[in-house]
């Protein structure tokens, strides 16, 4: 609710947001644990990385390899995860079950890290997923720009008879097409002028070979939204806005896939995600909620003072998905911009592998 106040004060007064330079001191790197076990079918993944400086590109992740990663449950299960790619550890057989208490143990650099026990709560259900076209303009560098979008809402319910701590996340996937075969390169002609000559990228053919970097699927992750049901009657959540789908020439080149994920969390994981959400919302709020240092549920056994980041969650999950097509738009978007490089450069999450849900 708070974050909605700011725009109106933008109007009232000439408020503005500008990028600035701020000297952020270098800090120590810490171990980041990103792991979850759910009631869905495995494999479950635990990623181990190190914290990055604030100005680092996120592609430059520092993976932590060669760790012994074990998930245990109070039912006596224990599985040592296999490192499937650098820093990515996966289970093979374990199946998460509601009501069991799971914990994670990591042995790396001769240090043992252990998580608190997380009891997997019962799942709720998403009743309805819908989207609403919303015209929108934003001012960027003093220029008004069209920023139309779809607001995505859901109605859902939590598990009956318990306190529900829910996290929703909207992920969107869209297809783009680039034209790497049109790639040109500048060369100096004998007369001394620069001329551009075609220089198709190796992945783009040449025809009749198939272009393997022309079509990409890009996934957008919206920031997770959280809510508990303490102020809600009957654990019935209605009109929860879980994210937006920007309308651009790229996102609606083909169509846009939205998937709503609802996680039932433990109270500790709920607090973690609530604080993550506050980081996103609070930064620009007039009222400046203080940005909290978010505590992990993992700790180093030999050195309790060591700071750790990330969280190991045990959550039950329900999903609902649908496509937004061009027909849902009140107008035709402009044709896609041509990108004469590999489509993999278009976004951090771009992949040339067609997702299973894409027709």
């Amino acid at each position, binding site marked *: 609710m*708070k974050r909605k106040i700011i725009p109106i004060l933008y109007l*009232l007064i000439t408020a503005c947001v500008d990028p600035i*330079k701020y000297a952020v001191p270098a800090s120590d790197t810490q171990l980041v644990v990103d792991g979850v076990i759910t009631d869905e079918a495995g494999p479950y993944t635990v990623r181990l990385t190190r914290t990055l400086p*604030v100005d680092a590109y996120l592609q430059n992740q520092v993976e932590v390899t060669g760790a012994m990663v074990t998930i245990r449950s109070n039912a006596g299960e224990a599985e040592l995860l296999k490192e499937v790619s650098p820093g990515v550890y996966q289970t093979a057989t374990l199946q998460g079950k509601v009501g069991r208490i799971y914990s994670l143990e990591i042995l790396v650099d001769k240090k043992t890290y252990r998580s608190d026990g997380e009891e997997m709560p019962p799942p709720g259900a998403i009743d309805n997923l819908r989207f609403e076209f919303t015209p929108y303009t934003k001012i960027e560098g003093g220029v008004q720009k069209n920023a139309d979008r779809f607001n995505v809402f859901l109605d859902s319910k939590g598990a009956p008879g318990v306190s529900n701590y829910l996290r929703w996340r909207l992920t969107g996937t869209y297809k783009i097409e680039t034209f790497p075969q049109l790639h040109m390169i500048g060369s100096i002609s004998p007369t001394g002028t620069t001329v551009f000559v075609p220089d198709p990228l190796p992945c783009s053919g040449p025809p009749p070979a198939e272009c393997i970097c022309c079509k990409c699927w890009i996934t957008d992750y919206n920031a997770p939204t959280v809510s508990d049901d303490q102020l809600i*009657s009957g654990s019935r959540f209605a009109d929860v806005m879980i994210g937006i789908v920007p309308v651009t020439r790229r996102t609606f080149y083909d169509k846009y896939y939205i998937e709503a994920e609802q996680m039932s969390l433990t109270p500790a994981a709920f607090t973690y995600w609530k604080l*993550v959400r506050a980081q996103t919302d609070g930064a620009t709020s007039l009222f*400046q909620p203080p940005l909290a240092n978010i505590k992990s549920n993992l700790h180093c056994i030999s050195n309790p003072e060591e700071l750790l980041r990330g969280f190991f969650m045990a959550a039950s999950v329900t999903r609902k998905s649908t496509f937004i097509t061009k027909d849902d738009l009140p107008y035709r978007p402009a044709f896609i911009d041509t990108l004469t490089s590999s489509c993999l450069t278009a976004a*951090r999450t771009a992949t040339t592998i067609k997702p299973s849900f894409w027709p």
Partner: protein
Amino acid sequence: MRLHSQFKIAVIIFLLFLCSGAYAQSVEDIRMDGTEAGKPLIQVLTELEQKYPVRFFYLEEWLSPFQVEQSHKGLTVVELLRDLFKGTELDAVVMDSHYLVIVKDPRTDMNRKALMNVAVRAQKSIEKVQVGDPKKVTKGATFILRGKITDGGSGQALVNASVSVSDLQQGTTTDGTGQFEVKIPAGNHVVSFSYLNYEEKIVDLALYADGEVKVILEEQPTILDEVVVSDVAANRATTSRVGQTQMSIREIKRAPSLLGEADLIKQIQVLPGVTTAGEAASGFNVRGGGVDQNLVLYDGIPIFNSSHAFGFFSAFNAQAIRDVSFYKGGVPAEYGGRISSVLDIRSREGDGQKWNGSGGIGLISSNLLLNGPIVKDKTTLSISARSTYSDWLINTIKTNYADLQNSTVLFYDGAVKLAHQFSADTKLTASYYTSRDEFRLQGDTTYRWRNQAGSIRLDHQFDENLSANLTLGVGSYSYALLDQNPGNGFNLSYRITYPMMKAEFHLQRGKHRFTFGDQLYYYDFNPGTLTPSSPASNIANIQMEKQYSFENAVFAGDAINLGEKYFLEGGIRFSSFSARGPASVYTYEPGQPKSVNTITDTLHYAAGQNIKTYFGIEPRLALRYSINSNTSLKASYQRTYQYLHLVTNTAAVMPIDIWQPSGYYFKPQHADQLSLGWYHTASSTIYEFSIEGYYKLIQNLLDFKDGARLILNSHLETDLLQGKGRAYGVELSANKVSGRLTGSVNYTYSRSLRTISGPTSQESVNEGAEYPSNFDQPNIVNLTWKYGISRRIFFTGFFTYHTGRPVTIPLSVSIVDNTVVANFSDRNAYRIPDYNRLDLALVFEGNHKRKKFWDGTWTISVYNVYGRKNPYTVFFRPSDQGALQPYQLSIIGAPLPSISYSFKF
């Protein structure tokens, strides 16, 4: 000058006699024989001249008041004279053993004449008053001058008006009923009576007996500021307390302002020792204290939210205010309940003679004040109102958010005051104030908040020494959030209602001025009611348990005039607070951090049953020592208790933050503050300098745990922490108070620190280490000026610089579940860039004729002249590639011009 020549003549005459004198028994050897008892001094001296070969030289007018009352047998004539002259400017000088010259120190008289000359030049109103008969005065006796200062229009007593015996650099202020008392030696004196926004009155006093004067001050019709008010400066060094400021409403109106809204709170914010978290922050912070630690009184009733539109404007209409006293230290015992400062606002009473009005038209709002007699000189009425216009402003500005086209920003405030004078000694006043805000986004949440305060006050003067006032009142603060969404719409409301009673007595006894009384509050808190806004809404019905409590305080104070050099004001306040049932209180496992999981039991209290009682003993002490007529030292110590806490989890206070009374878990806050000040008025009385330092310790400050939900939380004790605060600072200020150019420069160095150290790291902030508070701004420079281009046109300006406030910044990032999570530094470990801003205004005032039908003033002002984008906050947002990019949010990032018109008729 005349005296000077008199002195010369005396010396010449004396020299003449020196040449022709006879030689016999020395003057110093003459002893009194007892026959002098009961004779006038002149007669005694004449008889001695006949008896002995000696001569006495004097002016008859000097000695005529003196009478030798008793026998001085055995003493020499010189000893007799010195005894009689004690405490006067007269002295006896023996010359050449046979001549005795009575001389008068001319400085005091010259000083007096000079002051009169200044007053005459300044066309101040001067009255000649003689009390008693100079012939009947015995030796250099001192007498008591009593009196009452009232407003010529309404007859209202003027409280804290200044009484200054200018030639003696001695002064006092009127008490709560407008009474004063000064002790002065017999003779001629210049006494000035002054009060903010009123014309100063000079009395050329000849005092030869105890006397009483009735002083009527007239409100200044328009501006007379070009004249040299030479003793305003002297007043500051000799009368006011350390840490006390009185504000002139006219100066507030003339200062450059945001969108032309004359703003009391904004002017408070530029005083040394006062800071604010930013433009859009409600309230103000005094000497390292929180926003909730300021007692804002409107006609004696505390106001919980002093802001309109989330802090952009203050909730008080400057037109309706008669005067304002602001204490950041040396708080007298009659005030209590908040630990950092007192802002005592008194509203205007109606004119007793004729109906008149004033008003203003600005870009944001307009206001009007009407006042006058219902029964001439007996019953008066004053009504004022201020309101924003409809939403045209917001709706005409191009929006960058499509869904904001039909938004609302609306506020109004209004006040009514009715006064009835039953007799010269008894007066009844009824006052009501309300302010309301509404803020809405179409189809979304509406924020509403409202203050109300109503009071009835009876003033009665029992006799010339004893007076009393009784105030009965009730105040309330409420807010509501309304959301009309069909699926999840809700109404959330919150309310505090607080009836109160205060009885205050003033007693004058010799050197003492006693104040004593009792103050009682009853608090009824509704910490939250949540209801669905429509049957389809999924929102639950939640009614938080109400909280009831009593706060009582008995207070007594004494202001003692310890001679010319010392002035002491001491007081004590016994406060108590009792939280009452019905209530249920959770108990927690001992030794564990309080959390929902460690609840062991619930204690139930019946209606009226005592849950917890706290007591506070609050000593207050203020001492002034005048080093000389232009310089004084002041010191004060105060302990203050606060039983209500504002709980906020934002850096800037929101109108929908909650107030939490002390109770089973929350202890009252208390603060100890020691201040020391040095004040100097340059002899020209054009410049004033002061240095004030303070050190303050605060106990039991409330802070919150990260991620705490404060609203509708029935177990707040699990989410709140109590800690300590420490603040100290030095405030330097230089003012030029008269002349065409007036202004002030002040520099403050101050720190405001907090320590929240609980038994576990969850219950501590920054692992229990001391950290700067949200409004810790060590270096502050403020510059204000007013230049009279002509008698009617003023160029005013304000410049401010302060250190950026502390923030918490991300030091690294991690990626968890495809989300960028920033890892933050310790709380408030870094700062946003420094703040500086220049505001300018041109004020065109109407002509200065005293009698005229209409008087209008135009004010053209520009806020943030050089358009600096001062950061309100700094935040980090992931860029496209994921790295965090720092941004700053500036509230007012461009020059903001405005024009406003105010009038008086």
